[in-house]
Every structure is written in C-alpha cells, then in structure tokens.
C-alpha cells in the first residue's frame, strides 16, 4: 500500500473511544478490551475508587493551600483521576514512571507522602521524593522532555535483560514537541519496552487540542510503527484495560505502545490561570456529566460494592492525608541560604567550593537572616 490518505474515520469525536463504563456507570463491552478487564473484582474497583478519591481530595487541598497563599502554584488534576490512577495501578512496582507536573494520581498510587506532593509547589525544593525509591522520576515541567527519558530508561531495561516497563506521561499539547516525536522514533527503532500515556485533556493552557492536531492524537503513533489505542480517559476500567494491554505488549518484548486517554481538565491550567477567558461554561458542564469519580461510584453502586462504610472510610483517609499535607505546609522550614549551593555537582568542584566559602563569609556578617531586609546588615 503506497498511497496513504489520512483516515477520516479517525474522528476526533469525543465518544469515539474505547469504553467499558458508560457515563452512568453501566458496564459495557468491548471485544478488544474485555480480556484485560475481566478479572477486575470489586476489591480492585474499590481500590481504584479509593485512590482516585484521595487524589481528588488532595488536589482540592492543594488548590486551597495555594489560594490561601501557602503554595506558589498548583496544577490541578481534577477530572483526570481515572487515567492517572488506573494506569499507575496497572503497573508493577518496579516499572519506572516518568510523569509530568499534573500526574498527582500517579504519585498517590506510588505511595508518595503528602510532603512529597506539596513541598515542590511551595518552592521549598525542586524534587521531593527519591526517584529510585518510588520508581518515579521527578515530575517534568519542560513539556515532553520526559518522554525521551522514559525511552532511554526502557533501553536500559533491555540492556539489563529484565521485564520491567517504563512509562512516559504527557499531555495533548506535548505531542507537538519534537522530543515526543523523537521519543516515538527511538522507541520504535529499538523496540523499547515503553508505554506512552497521553492525557488528552482537551487543552494546553488556552489552546484547544485542535491547534496541536486536527486529527486524533492516537492516530499519530501508528505512523511511527507504534500501535495505539484511544480510550475514554474518564473510565477507570477502560483505562486499566488499555494500560494492561500496553504493558503486556511492552513486557513481552513487542515494543512500545501508545494510549490516548480522552479526558478533561476540569480546573484551571494552574492556579495562575483563568480559564473563563478562553473556554465555555457549557463545555465544563458537559464534562461534569462525565466525571470519572462519579462514574466509578455509580458503577460501584450498581454492582452493590459501594456502601456508607466504604464511602466514609475513603473520605476519612483522604481527609487525614489532606490534613497531613496542610500540616506539612504550615510547619515547613525553609532551608538555610547556604544550601542553595548544595548538590550542584556530585563530586567536589573548586568553583562551587570557592563560591560557598565566599557566600558563607557573607552570610556570617549578618545578625539576622540576610535578604530579609537590609537592616540585617552588620555594621562594619
């Protein structure tokens, strides 16, 4: 076949996605995904719900803390909990995940502590947890850069001969970046065990996904030789199944796979953003009807797996973590000034040593904390 026109059946229609749960929580069937979902029992569903609900709760706390002036910024995850939590839960603990700044649910699943979730946004540190311990890279801010890291990690897995998988998370906007495309080139060329998870939340700040791509994002990957799947990103069961399909391929040596999770950013891009400038209320309303958390709750109720005890247990767990998060923030101690010079290099470095010596001497001249006010300056 040598004449390739763009397949117009690859519609960008929101409903043209693989789905296992209707917005009302009814379990529907999909021949391609069912085999990856059949063993998901009530306990597993409740586990999914629990972590999604905790993610939502912590996200709300993050927004509140920012609004109250305790954090510099927060990038809300609301609306995207299904793909974040489901995809991370589908992974093995030793799979290595490369998230973007928005993947709160991934961190929650991986056991990040509340402190790990906020101290970066507060501006105390750049990276909180130890990547090698959680098997999660420090969340990436440079759009798309982490996709190559995930592929490189996967190349490392190949060289070590293990059956781990690495996962690259990014948004719809990121698909325009050269790095994400190069990541697909490298992954395909080396048959690397990597899964690309694109959370198409319809917006890159103020730009609708149509600016990045007039066709589906899922349609991009096959051109690179990477099979892809467009899944309802607000359907936790379908997301689980899709991720299992992708992980299984990668783990068994068949190479990379690509998932486009069609979802929605219900909040602002970040707490600095004002989405009313660029998007309609109606759109948000429409998506409220597809809320991933309510959908899973509806399903659990349908199958009789959601009761008050469970509900209040989840709320209590979320509240406890949120309280811990708030506490961490309110009691945070900013590191001493001299520590700005720590960890620039792993080995001794005469340049930084000299700067440390001089800066220390400078700081020693102050009675109080420097840079607070020039009155702290000692008389000389």
């Amino acid at each position, binding site marked *: 076949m040598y004449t390739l026109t763009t397949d117009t059946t690859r519609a960008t229609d929101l409903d043209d996605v693989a789905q296992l749960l209707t917005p009302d929580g009814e379990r529907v069937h999909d021949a391609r995904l069912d085999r990856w979902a059949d063993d998901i029992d009530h306990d597993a569903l409740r586990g999914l719900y629990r972590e999604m609900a905790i993610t939502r709760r912590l996200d709300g706390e993050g927004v509140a803390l920012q609004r109250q002036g305790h954090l510099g910024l927060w990038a809300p995850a609301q609306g995207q909990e299904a793909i974040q939590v489901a995809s991370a839960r589908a992974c093995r603990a030793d799979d290595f995940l490369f998230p973007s700044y928005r993947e709160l649910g991934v961190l929650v699943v991986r056991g990040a502590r509340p402190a790990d979730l906020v101290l970066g946004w507060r501006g105390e540190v*750049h990276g909180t947890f130890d990547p090698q311990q959680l098997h999660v890279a420090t969340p990436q801010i*440079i759009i798309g850069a982490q996709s190559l890291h995930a592929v490189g990690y996967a190349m490392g897995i190949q060289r070590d001969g293990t059956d781990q998988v690495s996962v690259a998370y990014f948004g719809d906007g990121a698909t325009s970046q050269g790095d994400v495309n190069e990541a697909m080139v490298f992954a395909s060329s080396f048959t690397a065990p990597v899964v690309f998870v694109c959370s198409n939340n319809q917006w890159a700040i103020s730009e609708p996904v149509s600016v990045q791509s007039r066709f589906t994002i899922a349609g991009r990957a096959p051109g690179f030789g990477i099979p892809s799947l467009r899944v309802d990103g607000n359907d936790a069961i379908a997301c689980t199944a899709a991720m299992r399909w992708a992980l299984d391929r990668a783990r068994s040596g068949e190479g990379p796979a690509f998932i486009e999770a069609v979802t929605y950013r219900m909040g602002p891009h970040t707490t600095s953003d004002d989405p009313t400038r660029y998007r309609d209320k109606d759109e948000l309303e429409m998506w409220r009807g597809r809320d991933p958390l309510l959908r899973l709750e509806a399903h659990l109720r349908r199958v009789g797996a959601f009761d008050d005890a469970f509900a209040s247990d989840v709320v209590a767990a979320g509240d406890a973590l949120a309280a811990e998060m708030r506490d961490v923030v309110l009691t945070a101690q900013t590191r001493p000034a001299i520590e*700005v010079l720590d960890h620039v290099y792993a080995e001794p470095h005469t340049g930084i040593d000299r700067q440390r010596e001089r800066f220390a*001497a400078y700081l020693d001249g102050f009675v109080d904390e420097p840079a607070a006010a*020039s009155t702290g*300056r000692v008389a000389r």
Partner: protein
Amino acid sequence: MTRLAMGKALTAGLRSAMARDDRVLIMGEDVGKLGGVFRITDGLQAEFGAQRVIDTPLAESGIMGTAVGLAYRGFRPVVEIQFDGFVYPAFDQIVCQVAKLHYRTGGRVNMPITIRIPWAGGVGAAEHHSESPEAYFVHTAGLRVVAVSNPKDAYTVLQQAIACDDPVVFFEPKRLYHTRFEGPEGDIDLDADIADAAPMGLARVVREGTDVTLVTYGAQVTTALDAATAAEDDGISIEVIDVRSLSPVDYRTVSASVRKTGRVVVTHEAGGEAGVGAELITSITEQCFHHLEAAPVRVTGHDIPYPPAKLEKHHIPDLDRILDAVDRVLDRPNSLSEVAR
C-alpha cells in the same frame, strides 16, 4: 503622556508596531485569545485578527523555524517565548538559522525577527520559570540582545527591535511587569514617532555619581538604584548605568563613567561564570585599565541551577550584596576582608 506599567507599555508597543507595519506578526503559545500568560498580547488578536496574532502548536523550535520561513517571505515575526526556560528547544533554530542566515546569504536575506522573552526571577515561580539565559545570546554573533528596565524603554525599544532588520532577543524582566514607575520612566507618549527616539543600543546613566560605577540591566536597575540611595547615607556616590543593549554594548557611555570613578561593580541575576558581567568587566578593563583603582567586581547569581522559589532571594543579588561589593571596590571592610584570595 500616559502612565503605564511595563506590561501595558509592551502591549502598547506591540499595538503601535502592528498598526504601523502590516508585515508584523505575533506568534507563540497562548498569545491569541488568552493574550499570553502575562497578557502582553492582550486584545491584539481581537484587533488584528488570527492571521496576524497566531496561536501556535506547543513547540518552540517549530515556532522559531516557521518564523524564519515567514521572514524569508518578508514578514517581521515577533515571537513570544512563554517563559525564559522554554527558549532552549528553539536554540538550534536561533543559533544556526536566525543568527546566521544574513551572513550565510551574503546579506541577501534579512531575519527581522524579534524574540520576546519574559525573563528572570523574583516572582516565586516553579523551576524553569526564572532563568536568565541572556549570555547565551550575547555570545551568539548575528543576534542583537536588549533588556529593558522600565515602561518607557519597554515601549520604545520593543518597537525599535521590531523595526530593526536584524534579529533581536528582547528580554522583559517579568518581576517588573506590574511595577508602577513614578518618574519619567513611567510616562509614555503614545503619539510620539519612534523615529525620533534615541537609537536602540545606547546605555543610560540612570543616576550620576562619582565614587563607583555600578553597571547593570533589567530588573537589577531598580535594585542598583536602591543600593545607590542606601550608599548615599554612608557618603558613597554611586553612578548607576543601565546598559539596555547587552549586545552590542555602548562602551562609550560605560567607559566615560569608569574613567571618572575608577571603580566598577557589575551586577546581574544570571550566574557569573562566562556571563555578561565577565564580558562587561573584560571590555571595561581593556578600555580603561589605567583608570581603574581597584579590581572590578561582579555581583551575580551563584553558578547554580535556579534554586527553589523560597530560596531565590539568596540567589538574586540584593541591595546588601551589592553594597558589600561596593565596599570591596572601595577597599572598605566587607565580607571578604578575612577570606583568603
């Protein structure tokens, strides 16, 4: 005369440039409906249409590379890089294409591209949102580099940069976007013809003094003025120079000051190592060696990746660090008095 904060002055400058020349285009991420994350292009898409104010896909190399193609076609693209730390994906197109095409073509093709960069720290932002990459561009032949420090310059120099047939990297200190300037730097004559303005590239003596020349640019100009005021109490007279153009530098103005004072402090937010301060001091030393009474001193950010927001005040040179350096060039007691050289 209209009193505008720097952000609004930039918007006004863009509007004037677009109204004057319909080959001027604006392109970048979120510059259209949103008006940019800093609202600098606010209202311009509504006024000039989506053909002239272009929301691009999220790819800086793509933005810069298509700007090159538009310049080949005779347009004058004004590219907004959303934050300083996101200019690097475009670095190849800037260094190998934007900067070199005029030379490559033996002067046959111009690259009148203006690269606007919301710049530097002090706003409590996340990583990559507070970078000072100006030295990379100063070191790149073929580019002009300017940095503004007040609304009036912002309005004028931006229009001059857009009108210039060479590529200009235009740095906007983001922590001054909303600062009100009470002096003449805050007053803008929106009716003035920019052809009548002093040419782009001249340094400005912001405050006269006799003991020490303090050279800087961007948001540090404000800090430098504060330092000069504070020093006055100690009887030290500081001349503050805003170089405005980082490449080329107006050494006539700078050197005249140094010949007068014999002592120089240079301050900027970027790390010192191979930074703009090194260039300034080396050139000053070349040109004024016999007038120097003390080793010129740099007061810069540390040579570290930009630190977390809560620590940035220990990175950006403040009043006290500048005054300490002033003490040093004057051989007064200072923090390094006891430190071995």
